């Protein structure tokens, strides 16, 4: 297996673990630069799903038969695996959801519904994905709470000089992204959580772009909530995680009602299970949780520090090469960035560019990336985004640059 020191990881062998990377698109070898939207899956994760359905499939926490025990055991083992992966104190702090979006909506509805009052402030940033913006807008509409935003500097970092005037005692929650999905900015999570706590606010971290990309420990970060998706870190779609500090989860009412989350039900009233099961009404994504645990095992075998080193080198290399292209504007911080680079070219609109690139087998994303306010902040309607993971190579970036040169010739 790939248990090797960071610098000597056999990335080529790792790439071979992903069957889909042998696909062709329009007669060209696929170059998959859209991992920030969803990552590809290694064979071992696909096999874990298959193995579950072939040998363990049953519903969890209810049947008394052999298969149900196997499924329940595998599902709860996955919860433990997630807890270890992010440094949670206990598996009870891990709620399985459908993804980051549902995790944040859960907090906005269950926690926000109970604790947020008229006049309270939710502090966000200008770089939030719509999934960490719209749930708070809905909460504000329901409760009369207000939203406040940390501005973004021209270089793509948060303007933390503004923080003292924004993060005051009326702030009840500071919710922000770990890594911006369109700028690649890596925010100083531990510092921001500490500042939130200093004014008595809780913190929520959107870790959608970071959970599979760099080492993280929720107790070192000091966050109260952390949300991420399985499918952006080699896992299946339909499974995500909400980490919540135990005492906070226990203080929250249920999110959805239904089976699986109750202790007893009478016609007029029910008693609910403790967290995390209180928040998991209905049959969960059992195979999804098991697939996520397999993805975590796989990522841990490579090592998150090595992955981060590899991906941020790729992203910096891509940003440097793009900067050399005439008429190209690259967004985000120059020094340190997550595994992606957003850019616009004078020669072509992002949609024309991505359509053109696709004809050469290059999969990128063009558009607003669910970041409309941020796009407006930078005066563009959208960007083209190339996003990377550990299976991508420098050669693929060189090929991207060639294709972009061809696009400039074609559209100019």
């Amino acid at each position, binding site marked *: 297996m790939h248990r090797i020191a960071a610098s000597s990881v056999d990335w080529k062998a790792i790439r071979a673990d992903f069957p889909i990377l042998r696909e062709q698109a329009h007669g060209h070898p696929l170059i998959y630069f859209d991992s920030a939207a969803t990552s590809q899956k290694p064979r071992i994760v696909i096999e874990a799903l298959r193995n579950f359905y072939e040998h363990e499939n049953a519903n969890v926490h209810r049947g008394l038969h052999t298969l149900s025990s196997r499924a329940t055991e595998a599902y709860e083992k996955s919860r433990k695996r997630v807890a270890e992966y992010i440094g949670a104190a206990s598996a009870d702090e891990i709620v399985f959801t459908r993804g980051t979006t549902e995790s944040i909506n859960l907090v906005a509805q269950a926690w926000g519904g109970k604790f947020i009052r008229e006049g309270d402030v939710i502090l966000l940033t200008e770089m939030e994905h719509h999934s960490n913006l719209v749930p708070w807008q809905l909460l504000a509409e329901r409760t009369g709470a207000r939203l406040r935003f940390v501005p973004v500097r021209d270089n793509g970092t948060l303007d933390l000089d503004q923080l003292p005037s924004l993060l005051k005692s009326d702030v009840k929650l500071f919710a922000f992204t770990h890594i911006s999905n369109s700028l690649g900015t890596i925010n100083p999570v531990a510092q921001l959580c500490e500042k939130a706590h200093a004014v008595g606010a809780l913190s929520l971290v959107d870790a959608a772009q970071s959970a599979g990309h760099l080492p993280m420990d929720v107790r070192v970060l000091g966050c109260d909530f952390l949300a991420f998706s399985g499918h952006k870190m080699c896992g299946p779609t339909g499974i995500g995680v909400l980490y919540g500090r135990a005492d906070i989860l226990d203080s929250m009412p249920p999110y959805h009602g239904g089976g699986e989350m109750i202790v007893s039900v009478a016609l007029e009233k029910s008693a609910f299970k403790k967290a995390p099961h209180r928040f998991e009404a209905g049959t969960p994504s059992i195979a999804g949780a098991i697939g996520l645990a397999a993805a975590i095992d796989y990522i841990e075998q490579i090592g998150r520090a090595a992955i981060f080193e590899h991906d941020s080198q790729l992203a910096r290399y891509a940003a440097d090469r793009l900067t050399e292209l005439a008429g190209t504007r690259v967004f985000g911080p120059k020094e340190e960035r997550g595994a992606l680079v957003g850019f616009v070219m004078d020669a072509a*609109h992002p949609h024309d560019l991505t*359509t053109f690139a696709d*004809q050469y087998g290059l999969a990128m994303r063009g558009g607003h990336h669910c970041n409309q306010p941020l796009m407006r902040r930078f005066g563009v309607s959208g960007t083209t985004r190339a996003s990377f993971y550990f299976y991508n190579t420098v050669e693929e970036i060189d090929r991207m640059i060639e294709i972009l040169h061809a696009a400039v010739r*074609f559209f100019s």
Partner: protein
Amino acid sequence: MTTEIEELYQEVILDHSRRPRNFGELADAAVRVHGDNPACGDEIHLDVKFDTSGALEDIKFTGHGCAISQASASLMTMKLKGKSRAEVVEMLCAFHDLVTEETSEAPKTLGDLRVMKGVRKFPQRVKCAMLAWRAVEQALEQGAGEATVSTEPA
């Protein structure tokens, strides 16, 4: 052999996207429609003036967006100037078929607009091509004043 990409971005389309015709505002427009394609960020502002018979006496647009949306608007304004309402509606239907139906023969009445045929191979780009047409459809319905139209129904 022409590739699908060359079929989509024919020289006429690239030319119209670089140098759009009828680009500007009509000071005496009867109706102005703001069309937007939220998925892409394409925007069209269409000004229309009708003659006494209700035909499109003059039509101009401003806006920004991808080559397909801008070229489609430019080609459309050239084609629709002087056309009666009935002709506009007929052309709208024919154009929609042109960019969506795999089997449709491109009717000769569409003239230059037939260069947009390549869009049918790119379903995600149909909204770009249709944006200006959605705006003109709204202009006919509205008749006067200002209106907005989106490719994503709210």
